[in-house]
């Protein structure tokens, strides 16, 4: 990102900031049970944390308390050490990117004006705003010449969601809150948006809190996953690999569902496995060393052969069989487990 970092009330120079929630609760008036009960979590700068849980578990409420769309009843929330409850909510929100499932693009404004919303609120110059809009449209793979002057209703759902992400990124906020941003798109578009989002996050390294009810999505995108139960209670908070290999309790296990090992394979690149020497006879299919072990297993099953070749940059560098895949899976189980 070439745009200057605009951390606003948050002082960190490199753009990424940590978030700490301490005993945060939300009690709605007239309800005996709190919607969120004493939620505590520390999120490292630049980390992508997934909050995953069933509908109504309070994950969205938890997230929305961070930018005070919902005011917490008690507890403290600090971003980069600053207590968000003591900041002006509007100032705070201008420095936290916010993407919701329904996207919420402003229908009467062009794509350009939608993305320029926060820069204008922050009083950026026209030139700087226009440059930033163009840069962001390119970042989310929408051609500025084609899309800048269009209105939201003229875009497909996937394109609208890209604009939603671009709008949230406009003032280069250090923190992003995303509430099931890809939930309303069809599976193919969702997969594409997820892949783009991962690439984008690799570039920008924001501190992101991402709410989803889709565990597969959580595994795919998250640095760490918090599996939430009733009243936003944290059942387990760990890396995807650790949650898959050692679920903390039955609740988490039920959330993972069937085929935990297969899901874990998807997280391990082929390069992690011990490759056998190149087979004398070339196999019917090849897997790239950058692909994951689930892709490798998929090809093994498909070809029915004893092993398949592994290529790197188009050159065959080794081969992999069932035993090597199983060994890699065992080697990573429990590795780096916390608690």
């Amino acid at each position: 990102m070439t745009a200057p970092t605009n951390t606003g009330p948050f002082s960190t120079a490199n753009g990424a900031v940590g978030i700490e929630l301490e005993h945060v609760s939300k009690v709605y008036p007239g309800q005996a049970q709190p919607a969120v009960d004493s939620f505590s979590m520390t999120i490292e700068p630049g980390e992508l944390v997934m909050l995953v849980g069933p509908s109504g578990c309070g994950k969205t409420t938890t997230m929305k308390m961070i930018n005070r769309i919902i005011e917490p009843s008690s507890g403290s929330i600090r971003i980069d050490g600053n207590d968000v409850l003591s900041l002006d909510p509007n100032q705070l929100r201008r420095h936290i990117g916010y993407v919701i499932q329904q996207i919420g693009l402003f229908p009467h404004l062009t794509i350009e004006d939608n993305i320029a919303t926060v820069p204008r609120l922050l009083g950026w110059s026209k030139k700087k705003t226009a440059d930033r809009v163009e840069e962001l449209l390119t970042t989310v793979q929408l051609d500025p010449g084609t899309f800048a002057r269009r209105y939201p209703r003229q875009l497909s759902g996937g394109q609208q969601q890209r604009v939603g992400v671009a709008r949230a990124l406009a003032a280069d906020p250090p923190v992003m809150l995303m509430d099931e941003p890809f939930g309303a798109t069809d599976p193919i578009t969702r997969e594409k948006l997820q892949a783009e989002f991962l690439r984008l996050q690799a570039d920008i390294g924001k501190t992101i809190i991402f709410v989803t009810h889709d565990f597969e999505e959580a595994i795919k995108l998250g640095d760490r996953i918090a599996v939430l139960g009733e009243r936003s209670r944290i059942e387990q908070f760990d890396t995807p690999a650790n949650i898959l290999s050692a679920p903390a309790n039955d609740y988490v296990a039920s959330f993972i569902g069937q085929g935990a090992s297969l899901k874990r394979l998807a997280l391990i690149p082929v390069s992690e496995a011990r490759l056998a020497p190149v087979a004398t006879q070339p196999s019917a299919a090849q897997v790239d060393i950058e692909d994951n072990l689930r892709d490798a297993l998929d090809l093994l099953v498909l070809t029915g052969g004893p092993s398949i070749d592994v290529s790197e940059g188009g050159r065959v560098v080794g081969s992999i069989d069932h035993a090597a895949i199983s060994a890699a899976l065992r080697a990573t189980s429990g590795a780096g487990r916390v608690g």
Partner: protein
Amino acid sequence: MTGFDWHNLIVFLGRRYDDIFELVGEHLLVVLMSVGIALVLGTGIGLLVWNKPITRSVAISTAAVMLTIPSLALLALLSPVLGLGWGPTIVALVFYSLLPIIRNTVVGLREVPLPILESARGVGMGPIRVLFTMQLPIAWPIILAGVRIAVQLTVGIAAIAAYVAGPGLGQYIFKGLSSLGSKNALNYALTGTVSVIILALLLDAVFLLIARYTISRGLK
């Protein structure tokens, strides 16, 4: 009954055209003033009640009841208090303009999708900014449709205001009706009536232009 005397009408129009234009001007002015006042009052009331279920239904049903009062009766009721001429006319026209404007303001504001309002808050807009840059512009096509109905309604009702010596083309219509049998009775009534119709059509055309230039293309 012989055929209509076109020659007589043309002579009539030729003699009184400046008088007619003045009445058209008065008619237009009283309609625009009344709808202007009703627009401010009606959107104000709409903004106050749109998200409160009880006050909202009270406001809309009150305005609906007001609309059912016959205009002649209302003018007769107003004139002992407000006298004759512009006063009771404007009050009556504002009265009839309120329902379409309040109702459409309420409907328009309620139709602004909640995710849009949440997004607007989420990017750091305060309530006043959300109102003026999001809610009102998005509700504007519906509010404008209400104003258009109010104008059509009051162009017609303003003609009846001549009953309390109000301004506008109603004076010709009433003059014609009260002098039936005289040489120019039909000319007066016809000129008044046709002018009201032409005025209504022209104003409607103006509204099409206003809609075209004030409604975002993203909302059409």
